[in-house]
């Protein structure tokens, strides 16, 4: 028996139990326990990475034909994801010691972080749909807890609710999909499903439906259009949480799930096309929205949405390895960018507006240079990590001209808004008091930045990436897509750089992008209208049918009978006697003569 997967999974869980139940009062100790737990997970993840593939499980629920296992499935995908989740998780835990140092809820924060690590590692290790779904929901819960960490303010709890509800919508579809798959194939284990599903072939419509329902889960968790609205709001949480959960790992769970269950989609071209276009639409819309945001974390959030859209699009292009490759590189540089942003926000006393920053090059050199590396990696500047993975997706679009164009446009927009962010936030002169008095963050925060920036530099090189992921051989020459990619990047970066260089306020004003295509407003009014309609209908039912018909109707009938019968109760003894006698006579008459 192989113990390492269980140690990886349960060491954060032990940290949750200890920090939540025992050391809640001891803030420092709680954070060290939590960091130690994730360090153990990371070490054993390394051991698993160099170890053999395998799968093991034991019965949890056994009801005749319905069996649920608790087990792990280790293959290349699991190994890579374990490294990403535990590695980035470890760095962000360390960073959190610095970032959350003075926070009163520090112990609670680290319990939440450990709970998240436990659930996320559970998703990665799960060998069946049900176990994955349980951890999937746990991830949602821990995300909710961490977004609402500062619960004494108004916005974070509301953002937590929004995230949880949007995820519930997707998860409902996911659950239906799992049930459909189980009813058709009789198993929920990935390995058995991968063997049985292609041979099963009920009807193409059924298979497409089941696959798309499972994809709903990914739409919710990976914040794809039209459920993307929760991710930007989730930035209300502490910045390390945004880096870990809402950039590097949790939102990638949807992409990971698609790769894990890719056999479901392989047989259904229609589902693949839909996935491709949902990914591309998300990517384009989010990139457009990002160009007009003023909050540093929101720009990064929309950029995350956009990159997640690209990963999903890679799934739709039948190249899950490319999506996972991009997930892998994106985890390193997006975590880096968020942590860099967190470092700036922390040093500028929680100032998040990029127009009140500026001139940080001299004052925060480590943050400045690492953020630059992250930016270059994200905007696909060769030879940084993002270039290779984005190019892989672009190359797999190949002959699909509309998809190819869309990805190229996204590359251009990414370069544009990221150079805007970088130029405005870091270059120029300080535009507020806090910015002019900023100084560098402590080592515990800069060390993760440096490590992540090294990863963001080198993770993409083919000879390094091939140690982590086996990319498929693509047809045609890679040069064409690379040229397009570099042209798009250069155009975006130079236009962004020169447009925003030395500016004190935004020279472009596109309210449509700034207000996120009014999608939130649309949802709000939609919810308001449906709620009003529902309230009116149920108000009518309550007032007229339940109150009017049933309650008042019953009482009215009773009252009416009472009123009518009251006239018989005249109180005269002899009248009663007469009625009684008359009744007896009638009865006698009926008995004696009535039956003839």
């Amino acid at each position, binding site marked *: 028996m192989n113990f390492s997967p269980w140690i990886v999974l349960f060491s954060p869980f032990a940290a949750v139990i200890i920090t939540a139940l025992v050391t809640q009062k001891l803030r420092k100790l709680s954070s060290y326990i939590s960091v130690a737990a994730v360090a153990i997970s990371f070490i054993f993840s390394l051991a698993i990475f160099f170890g053999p593939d395998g799968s093991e499980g034991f019965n949890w629920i056994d009801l005749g034909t319905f069996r649920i296992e608790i087990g792990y499935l280790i293959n290349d995908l699991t190994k890579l994801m374990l490294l990403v989740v535990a590695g980035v998780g470890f760095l962000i835990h360390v960073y959190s010691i610095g970032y959350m140092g003075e926070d009163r809820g520090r112990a609670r924060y680290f319990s939440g972080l450990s709970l998240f690590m436990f659930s996320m590692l559970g998703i990665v290790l799960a060998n069946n749909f049900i176990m994955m779904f349980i951890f999937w929901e746990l991830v949602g819960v821990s995300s909710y807890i961490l977004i609402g960490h500062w619960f004494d303010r108004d916005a974070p709890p509301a953002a937590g609710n929004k995230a949880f509800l949007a995820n519930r919508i997707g998860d409902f579809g996911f659950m239906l999909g799992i049930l459909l798959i189980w009813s058709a194939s009789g198993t929920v284990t990935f390995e058995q499903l991968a063997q049985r599903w292609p041979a099963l072939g009920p009807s193409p419509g059924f298979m497409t439906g089941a696959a798309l329902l499972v994809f709903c889960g990914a739409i919710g968790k990976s914040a794809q259009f039209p459920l993307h609205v929760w991710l930007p709001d989730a930035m209300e949480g502490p910045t390390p949480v945004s880096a870990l959960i809402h950039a590097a790992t949790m939102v990638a769970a949807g992409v990971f799930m698609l790769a894990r269950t890719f056999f479901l989609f392989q047989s259904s071209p229609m589902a693949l096309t839909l996935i491709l276009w949902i990914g591309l639409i998300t990517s384009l819309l989010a990139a457009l929205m990002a160009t007009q945001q003023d909050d540093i974390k929101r720009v990064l959030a929309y950029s995350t949405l956009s990159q997640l859209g690209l990963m999903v699009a890679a799934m739709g292009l039948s190249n899950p390895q490319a999506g996972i490759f991009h997930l892998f590189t994106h985890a390193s540089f997006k975590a880096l960018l968020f942590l860099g942003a967190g470092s700036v926000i922390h040093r500028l006393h929680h100032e998040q507006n990029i127009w009140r920053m500026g001139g940080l090059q001299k004052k925060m050199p480590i943050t400045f240079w690492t953020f630059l590396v992250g930016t270059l990696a994200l905007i696909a500047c060769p030879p940084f990590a993002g270039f290779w993975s984005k190019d892989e997706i672009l190359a797999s679009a190949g002959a699909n001209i509309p998809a190819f164009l869309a990805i190229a446009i996204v590359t251009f927009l990414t370069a544009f808004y990221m150079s805007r962010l970088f130029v405005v936030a870091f270059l120029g002169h300080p535009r507020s008091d806090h910015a002019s008095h900023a100084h560098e963050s402590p080592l515990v925060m800069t060390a993760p930045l440096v490590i992540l920036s090294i990863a963001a530099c080198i993770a993409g090189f083919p000879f390094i990436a091939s140690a982590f992921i086996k990319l498929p051989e693509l047809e045609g020459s890679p040069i064409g897509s690379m040229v397009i990619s570099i042209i798009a990047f250069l155009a975006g970066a130079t236009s962004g750089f020169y447009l925003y260089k030395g500016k004190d306020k935004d020279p472009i004003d596109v309210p449509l992008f700034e207000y996120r295509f009014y999608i939130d407003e649309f949802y709000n009014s939609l919810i308001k209208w449906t709620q009003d309609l529902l309230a009116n209908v149920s108000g009518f039912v309550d007032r007229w049918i339940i109150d009017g018909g049933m309650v008042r109707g019953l009482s009215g009938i009773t009252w009416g009978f009472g009123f009518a019968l009251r006239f018989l109760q005249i109180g*005269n*003894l002899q009248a009663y006697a007469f009625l009684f006698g008359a009744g007896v006579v009638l009865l006698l008459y009926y008995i004696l003569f009535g039956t003839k």
Partner: protein
Amino acid sequence: MVTLNDYLMASGLLFAIGFAGVLLRRNVIIIFMALELMLNAANLSLIGFSRFNVQNGLPDYNAQVLVFFVITVAAAEVTVGLAIIVALFRARQTTHVEDISTLKF
């Protein structure tokens, strides 16, 4: 020769007279007497049936025993009824039924 029918006619007549008394008289005591008349009309028909239901040369004594029971119970009932009437008179100073038409005084 007196037949069962004659007895039943007499009994029915008594019953009708009693019932008419109950319906038409005002004084509760008179109504009470009329009620006794109805009771005895029933007794009379019972005795009639008993006398004419001859088995093995003997009348059916069961009915006659029943009549004795009825008379006994009626005597007890009369005491209760009269006591109620006395109590009623003490409360309302009247024994006329039309004055006693409410449940609550």
